[in-house]
C-alpha cells in the first residue's frame, strides 16, 4: 500500500491531495499530455491522512469513475424499486382488493335479497292484490340466486389466499343447503295456500332454519371477506406509500451524490488534464439530473394516485358496500318482522341496530330513531357535507369534491329518510293490530299506494348511483397510477446504460493516455 505519513495526534487534518494547478504550467487551455511540472502527476502526494486514496492520477480517475458508477447504479436501483413499490400498491388496490370488495359486496347483496324475496313469497301466500305477487317474488329470488352464484364465483376467482379460497368453497356448500331449505319452506307454503300474512308454523320452522343459515353462516363469511380487503388495502397503502416516499428521499440523496461525484470527476479532469469541459461527462450529468427530476415528479404523482385510489375510491367503495349490505339486510328484517311474530322483537331490535350503523342518531327505540331521522334529514337548511353524521352514510360527507357527489349524496339521504318513514308506518299498523294493512303498506297494493319495499328500492338505486361515482373515481385513479409508471421498467435500465456509457466514454480517452 501507499506509504502514509501518520498525522500527529490531534493535528488538524492535512489538506487533501489538492488538484491545485501546478505553478508555471502555462495557460494553454487544451493540453494533450499531462505536464511534468513541479510534481509528477503520478508522484505520491506530500502528505495523506487516509490510506485508500490511490496514488496515481489514473488510479484516482478510476476510483472517482467507480464511485460515480456506484452512485448512478444505486440511483437507478432506488428508482426501480420505488417504481415497483408504487406499482404494487396500485395493483393490490386496483386489481385485487377493489374488485374483491365489489364482488363480495355484490354477493352479500344478492344473498340477502334471496332471503328477503323468500320471506316475501312466504308472506304473500295466495294473495293477488298486493304490489308484489308470490310468483314475482320467486322470480326475483331466482334472479338473486343466479347473481349471488356469479358473484361467488367471481370472488373465488379473485381469491389469492387459502383462507379466501376455503371461504368461497364453504359458501358454495352453505348456499346449496340454503336452497334445499328454501325449497322445503316454499313447498309446504304452497300446500298451505294461505292468505297474506304469517304462514303456518311448520313453514316458519323451515324458514327459520334457512334464514339462520344465511345470517349465521353465509352472510358473515361474505361480509368478513369484504372487511379483510379493507385491512389488506390499509396495510398495503401504508407500507407502499411509505416505501415510495422513502424512495423519493433516496432518489434525491443518490442523485445528489452522483451529481457531486460527477462534478468532482469533471473538476479533477479539468485540473489534471486541462480540459475545460468533458462533453460526455457533462451530458451524463445532465441526464442524471433529468432522471432525478423525472423520478421525483413520477413518484410524487404515484403517492397522489395511491392516495386518491384509496381515500376517494376504495375507502368509500368499502363503506358504501357495507352500507348497502347492512341496509339490505335491515330491509329484509322488516319483512321478517311481519312474517315471524315469534321473533318479531328480535327482528325489530336488529333493524334499529342496523339502521343506526348506517346513519347514527342517538335513540333508545325505533320510534325515536325515526323521529330523529325525519327531523335531522328533513331540516330545510341541511348541509350533509358539513353535518358529518356518524355511520356509514355519514362518511360520505368528506367526498364533496367529487363531481356529482353532493347531489347524489343528498338524494341518498332523502331516500333513506323516506324509507325510514314508511317502515315506521308499517310498524305502527302492526302495533295497531292491522296486520293486513301493514302487509299492504310493506308490499304495496293497499290504499294510499304506500310501499316501503318500493321506498327501499328507490333508496338502494340512489345508493348505487353514489357508488358508481366513487367507482369511476377509483378506476380513474388506478388507471392513472398504472399509466404513471408505464415505460419506467424499460426506461430505467436504458437511462442507466446511456449514463454509464457516457461516463465511461468521457473518462476512457484520459485513461488511455496512461497506457
Amino acid at each position, binding site marked *: 500500500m501507499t506509504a502514509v505519513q501518520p498525522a500527529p495526534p490531534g493535528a488538524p487534518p492535512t489538506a487533501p491531495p489538492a488538484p491545485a494547478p501546478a505553478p508555471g504550467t502555462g495557460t494553454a487551455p487544451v493540453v494533450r499530455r499531462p505536464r511534468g511540472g513541479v510534481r509528477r502527476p503520478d508522484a505520491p502526494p506530500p502528505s495523506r491522512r487516509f490510506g485508500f486514496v490511490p496514488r496515481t492520477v489514473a488510479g484516482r480517475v478510476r476510483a472517482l469513475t467507480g464511485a460515480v458508477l*456506484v452512485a448512478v*447504479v*444505486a440511483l437507478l*436501483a*432506488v428508482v426501480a*424499486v420505488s417504481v415497483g413499490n408504487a406499482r404494487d400498491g396500485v395493483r393490490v388496490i386496483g386489481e385485487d382488493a377493489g374488485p374483491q370488495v365489489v364482488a363480495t359486496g355484490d354477493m352479500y347483496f344478492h344473498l340477502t335479497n334471496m332471503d328477503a324475496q323468500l320471506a316475501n313469497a312466504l308472506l304473500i301466500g295466495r294473495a293477488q292484490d298486493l304490489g308484489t305477487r308470490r310468483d314475482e317474488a320467486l322470480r326475483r329470488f331466482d334472479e338473486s340466486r343466479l347473481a349471488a352464484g356469479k358473484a361467488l364465483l367471481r370472488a373465488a376467482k379473485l381469491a389469492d389466499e387459502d*383462507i379466501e379460497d*376455503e371461504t368461497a368453497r364453504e359458501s358454495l356448500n352453505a348456499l346449496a343447503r340454503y336452497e334445499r331449505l328454501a325449497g322445503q319452506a316454499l313447498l309446504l307454503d304452497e300446500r298451505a295456500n294461505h292468505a297474506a300474512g304469517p304462514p303456518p308454523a311448520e313453514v316458519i320452522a323451515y324458514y327459520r332454519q334457512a334464514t339462520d343459515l344465511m*345470517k*349465521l*353462516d353465509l*352472510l*358473515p*363469511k361474505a*361480509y*368478513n371477506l369484504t*372487511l379483510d380487503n*379493507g*385491512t389488506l388495502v*390499509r*396495510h398495503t397503502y*401504508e*407500507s407502499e*406509500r*411509505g*416505501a415510495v*416516499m*422513502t*424512495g423519493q*428521499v*433516496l432518489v434525491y*440523496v443518490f442523485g445528489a451524490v452522483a451529481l457531486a461525484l460527477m462534478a468532482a470527476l469533471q473538476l479533477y479532469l479539468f485540473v489534471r488534464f486541462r480540459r475545460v469541459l468533458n462533453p460526455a461527462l457533462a451530458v451524463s450529468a445532465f441526464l442524471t439530473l433529468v432522471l432525478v427530476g423525472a423520478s421525483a415528479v413520477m413518484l410524487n404523482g404515484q403517492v397522489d394516485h395511491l392516495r386518491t385510489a384509496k381515500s376517494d375510491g376504495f375507502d368509500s367503495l368499502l363503506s358504501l358496500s*357495507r352500507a348497502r349490505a347492512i341496509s339490505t339486510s335491515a330491509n329484509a328484517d322488516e319483512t321478517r318482522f311481519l312474517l315471524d311474530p315469534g*321473533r318479531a*322483537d*328480535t327482528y*325489530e*331490535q*336488529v333493524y*334499529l*341496530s342496523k339502521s*343506526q*350503523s348506517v346513519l*347514527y342518531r*342517538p335513540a*333508545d*327505540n*325505533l*320510534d325515536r330513531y325515526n323521529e330523529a331521522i325525519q327531523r335531522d334529514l328533513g331540516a330545510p337548511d341541511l348541509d350533509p357535507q358539513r353535518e358529518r353524521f*356518524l*355511520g356509514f352514510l355519514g362518511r360520505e360527507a368528506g367526498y364533496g369534491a367529487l363531481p356529482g357527489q353532493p347531489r347524489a349524496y343528498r338524494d341518498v339521504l332523502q331516500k333513506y329518510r323516506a324509507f325510514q318513514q314508511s317502515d315506521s308506518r308499517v310498524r305502527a299498523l302492526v302495533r295497531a293490530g292491522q296486520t293486513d294493512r301493514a302487509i299492504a303498506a310493506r308490499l304495496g297494493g293497499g290504499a294510499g299506494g304506500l310501499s316501503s319495499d318500493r321506498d327501499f328500492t328507490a333508496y338502494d338505486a340512489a345508493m348505487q348511483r353514489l357508488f358508481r361515482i366513487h367507482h369511476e373515481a377509483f378506476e380513474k385513479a388506478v388507471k392513472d397510477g398504472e399509466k404513471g409508471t408505464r415505460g419506467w421498467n424499460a426506461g430505467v435500465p436504458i437511462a442507466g446504460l446511456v449514463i454509464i456509457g457516457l461516463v465511461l466514454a468521457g473518462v476512457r480517452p484520459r485513461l488511455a493516455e496512461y497506457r
Partner: protein
Amino acid sequence: MTEGRTGLGTRSRLRAALAAGTAALALAGCGVAEGADGSVADADSLVIGVKDNEPGLGSRGANGRYEGFDIDVARKVAEGLGVDAGNVTFKKVSSDQREDLLDEGAVDLVVASYSVTQQRKTEVTFAGPYYVAHQDILVRQSDAASVENVRDLAGKRLCRVDRSVSFTRVREERDVPVLSVPGADYADCVSKLAAGALDAVSTDDLILTGLAAKAAAAGSGPALRMVNAPISDEPYGIGLRKGDVEGCEAVNKAITGMYQDGTAAALLKKWFVPAGLEVTTTVPQFEGCD
C-alpha cells in the same frame, strides 16, 4: 399517548436519517414504520378486563383462578396476538367501568359479555363479535306461566344494572312499562329474584343460563326458569381503546382463527352445551374496525 407519539416521531426521523446515509443495501429494508403507536397488536403483555360474577362467562373458580367462556376466548386472543400466557393479567371490570378503564389505559382489552352497540361504538373500538348472544328473561318457576314474552313484564319489577343495555331494551326499545329495581350486577339480580325482591331478570341468555345453573346447584331458594323469548341479538365484542384499528384487525384475525381451527366450537361446547343452550359454531359477522 403523547409519549408513544414522540417515540414514533424520533423513530421516523432516525429512519429518514438512516435512509439518507445508507447505500443501496438499505433499500430492502426501507419503508415507513407501520402500525399505530400503543396498539395491542404490538403488545408484549396484556391486561384484560373480565367479569368475575358471571358463571360460565367470567367468574373465579374454587382456586381463585378466572374461568369461563370469556376467559378462554381472552386467552386464545392473547395467544393470537403473540402474547405469552404468562404475560396476560386479568382484571375485574363491572359493566359501568368498561369504557372508562379502556380510555384510561387501565385495561388493554375488555372481554366481558360486552355487547356492541352503536352508542358504545362512539366511545370504544370493537373487535369481533366473537359470539352473538340473545337477551332473554329469567323468572321464578311459579311465575313462568304468566310470562310468555317481554310484554308480559308490564307492571312487574325488573332488575336494572347500571350501564348495561338490557333494561333499556325492555323499557325503551320494547316500550314495556316495567318497574325498575337496581341491582349491583346480574348475580345480585338473580339473588334478589330468588329472594322475591323483584320479579324478573332480563339480560343475555349466556349470563342467565350460568347464573340459574349456579343457583340451582346451590339448592336454596325457589326454582328459576328461562322464558325463552329472545328479544335481541347481542354481539359480544372485544373492546379496545378507541381508534386502535391495527389492534382491532389483529384481534379479528385471532377470532377468525379460533373459529377455523375448531377452538370456538370446543369452548362453546364446554361452557354452554351442558346447560342446554343451542350454540352457533360459525364465525359471526364482524362489525369492522372503524
